[in-house]
């Protein structure tokens, strides 16, 4: 069964450094998402992406964040200058052909980002 994959599983970085988190969504999906979960807190929506542009973003998704689908298979989240509070588990998700509200979102295993 196809799955969403994410790399790396764990990323450690210094404050102020740029990081790129990578995701490969399920191949025939058209809607892509990033969520994050700070330790002990709820899973929070960051951004959704469709047709090569951002569809919606949350207040968390400020100018330090960007997303890209560079080659038709990867979906990346870049944090330009990491802060300590960016430490979290980042989940990528994709959903199917129509993005209808009740279409299932398939989640990746997550990337744990630790900012020192």
């Amino acid at each position, binding site marked *: 069964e196809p*799955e*969403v994959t994410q790399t790396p599983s764990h990323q450690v970085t210094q404050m102020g450094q740029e990081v790129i988190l990578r995701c490969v969504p399920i191949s025939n999906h058209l*809607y892509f*998402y990033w*969520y994050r979960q700070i330790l002990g*807190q*709820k*899973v*929070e*929506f960051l951004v*959704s992406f*469709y047709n090569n542009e951002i*569809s*919606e973003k949350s207040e968390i998704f400020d100018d330090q964040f960007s997303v890209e689908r560079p080659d038709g298979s990867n979906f990346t989240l870049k944090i330009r200058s990491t802060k300590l509070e960016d430490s979290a588990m980042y*989940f990528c998700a994709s*959903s199917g052909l129509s*993005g*209808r*509200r*009740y*279409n*299932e*979102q*398939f*989640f*990746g*295993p*997550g990337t744990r980002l630790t900012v020192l």
Partner: protein
Amino acid sequence: AQRVTQPEKLLSVFKGAPVELKCNYSYSGSPELFWYVQYSRQRLQLLLRHISRESIKGFTADLNKGETSFHLKKPFAQEEDSAMYYCALYGHGSGNTGKLIFGQGTTLQVKP
């Protein structure tokens, strides 16, 4: 405001006991609700969605608009049900893109 509340961080029951994981929501309009489950060292996966009115692994959830609740129930818990359970709401956005709003999650621990 669009919000999901799961009041219990941890629910511990014995095998064979009934389980009810509570979820309340705040949403203006017709909500669409889901339960996601995360087993140990595994990814988040959809357990069930209210629109399907299905029973998965013996779990059911009924949307109660009067009480704004979507509690997850199972009559007889099994040890393999031990996991983290998240209630989620499809949120309004600037497009029909399926943003999910999650509750805090409840850890279900089923003891032998």
